[in-house]
């Protein structure tokens, strides 16, 4: 079946190739289509720079703000305060300041630019295989149970693995789907707009070192600017001292408000690291003893020291998405001729076409949904899962539902929800709860930013389905919409049938 499709696709490829090269048959082992790197065909909502070396989230405005704040504050410090301090006290002060500043900048860029641990989406073969297994498990009755979950026992604790409808995989434990970036991320901590990226398995240690060193830098600058003003005012009087270095006033203000949030955040993440939890898990209280006597964290290594070492100095896994690799062309490639079997290249080549087909299917799906939305708006009890909007972003009713202004109803977690609902909830829970969690977990550098705005999207920014059609309806749009439009039970079977049909289409 697969070969049949790839053959027919290959015919299209051949006709394309013949316009580019005159002898398509001469070099059977070379790529004939123009080389395209995998990042160019990446299905998530990320931005890539430097030919795939740098990877960031789509919205990077706040990241530039972070950068500007750090650069301006440190610039002012080095220009106006350091000369005085170096003279009056010791020249080591600017040196330490410089080292801290470089470290902060390095870790910030490393956090922002690296792959957080994105899980590549399933190939269509895998997806079809999973669908088949789920069919077998459910039996052939008309009614399908809505959530797709798998239970697994990890170190004595039962953990539910949820199926991601966008990525078509059962998410590994601790992974979560970020609806802002539209990717499943391993050991998902949270999506941080300040660094313009998700924080996950591969960049958590950089993120932690960033906030830790930023705490030190902020305290350092704060302390020494105050010292400068005090020393200066001893000589010339307080007001003259302030007039002499107005920059110091600005620095003090910025640092004062930053200290509370950054130091608090560092403390919070130190706690998370030592107990080996993610922000997500902590907010949900997944492993808290309040849930039950036997509830404990199965991922913890037992003691604080091992947990810290593992998080900060453990082996750094490589990126799974291979951004700079080339998308395999359809022609079979002689990877390693093992007894004449040359299909090895072809299995990879199918991936690129599966991507195209996948896009095609997604777009068809969304066209159908867009067509169906006027009908569904009348239904009152749809389980709809959506990203939050700024209007009601602050009004988080416990953690059980997110409501988008408009015709949609909110989704109480008590219902048998399609599993895709929870990932966007969890992602946003992680981000939504940040502003109100605890006392210091404000995650904001300057005070000016209203805290609640960080993680909410305006309706314009609400992500449309992966790169394809923009539905345009007010019903918000994440990948989860497809599961949410129908009533459970009968509509779910409809939905599952259509998804299955489309998946089968792709695998034929």
């Amino acid at each position, binding site marked *: 079946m697969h070969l049949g499709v790839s053959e027919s696709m290959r015919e299209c490829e051949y006709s394309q190739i013949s316009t580019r090269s005159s002898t398509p048959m001469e070099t059977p082992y070379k790529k004939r289509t123009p080389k395209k790197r995998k990042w160019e065909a990446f299905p998530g909502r990320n931005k890539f720079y430097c030919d795939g070396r740098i990877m960031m989230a789509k919205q990077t405005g706040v990241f530039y703000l972070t950068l500007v704040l750090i650069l301006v504050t440190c610039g002012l410090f080095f220009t106006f305060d350091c000369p005085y301090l170096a003279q009056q006290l010791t020249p080591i002060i600017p040196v330490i300041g410089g080292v801290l500043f470089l470290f902060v900048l390095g870790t910030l860029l490393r956090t922002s630019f690296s792959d957080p641990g994105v899980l*590549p989406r399933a190939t269509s073969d895998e997806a079809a295989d999973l669908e088949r297994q789920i069919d077998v498990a459910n039996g052939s009755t008309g009614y399908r149970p809505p959530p797709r979950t798998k239970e697994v026992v*990890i170190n004595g604790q039962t953990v539910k693995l949820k199926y991601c409808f966008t990525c078509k995989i059962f998410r*590994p434990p*601790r992974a979560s789907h970020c609806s802002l970036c539209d990717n499943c991320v391993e050991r998902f901590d949270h999506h941080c707009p300040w660094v313009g990226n998700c924080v996950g398995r591969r960049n958590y240690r950089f993120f932690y070192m960033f906030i830790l060193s930023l705490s030190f830098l902020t305290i350092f600058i704060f302390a020494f600017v105050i010292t400068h003003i005090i020393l200066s005012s001893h000589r010339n009087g307080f007001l003259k001292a302030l007039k002499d270095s107005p920059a110091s006033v600005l620095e003090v203000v910025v640092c004062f408000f930053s200290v509370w949030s950054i130091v608090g955040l560092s403390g919070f993440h130190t706690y998370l690291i030592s107990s080996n939890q993610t922000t997500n898990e902590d907010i949900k209280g997944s492993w808290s003893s309040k849930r039950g006597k036997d509830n404990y964290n199965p991922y913890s290594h037992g003691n604080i020291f091992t947990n810290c070492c593992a998080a900060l100095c453990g082996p750094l896994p490589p990126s799974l998405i291979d951004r700079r690799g080339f998308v395999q062309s359809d022609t079979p490639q002689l990877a390693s001729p093992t007894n004449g079997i*040359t299909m090895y290249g072809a299995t990879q080549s199918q991936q690129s076409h599966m991507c195209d087909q996948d896009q095609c299917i997604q777009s068809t799906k969304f066209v159908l949904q867009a067509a169906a939305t006027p009908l569904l708006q009348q239904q009152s009890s749809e389980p709809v899962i959506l990203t939050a909007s700024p209007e009601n972003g602050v009004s988080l009713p416990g953690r059980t539902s997110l409501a988008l202004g408009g015709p949609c109803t909110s989704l109480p977690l008590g219902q048998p929800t399609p599993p895709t609902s929870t990932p966007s909830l969890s992602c946003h829970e992680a981000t939504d709860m940040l502003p109100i969690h605890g006392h210091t977990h404000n995650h904001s550098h300057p005070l000016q930013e209203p805290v609640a705005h960080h993680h909410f999207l305006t309706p314009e920014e609400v992500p449309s389905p992966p790169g394809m059609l923009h539905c345009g309806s007010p019903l918000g749009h994440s990948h989860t919409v497809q599961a949410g439009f129908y009533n459970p039970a009968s509509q779910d079977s409809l939905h599952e049938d259509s998804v299955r049909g489309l998946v089968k289409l792709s695998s034929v």
Partner: protein
Amino acid sequence: MAETHSLQDLQQPAVSSKVFVQRDYSSGTICRFQTKFPSELESRLDKQQFEETIQALNNLYAEAEKLGGKSYLEGCLACLTAYTIFLCMETHYEKVLKKIARYIKDQNEKIYAPRGLLLTDPIERGLRVVEVTIFEDRSIGSGR
């Protein structure tokens, strides 16, 4: 689907099906694959052989992710050099991944290809599955 392809294409064995060996999360988030023998391979392969391959892969991945003095040292050294050291040298994980690639190639050549099967390196599937491609029987003759 007209057969207007090069000679090489006609020699290619047809893919009959693919079997996916999923991850085993019972020990946490470390990379492990299930050693359960898939029923589709029963006619082609020994159960024990398959389990040995998967177990060897599991051991290699465990070695890559092992927490120990060596990995901590590497982590600390990397941190101190602001991770610039990785411009010159590979991480331990990457070294083991190369080892795994060689092992899979070796297994394919010796055991799987003669039986009309092909193992795909899990890293190409994002470490989600071990994909075993089953080729139609007729390919074995023409494959040699």
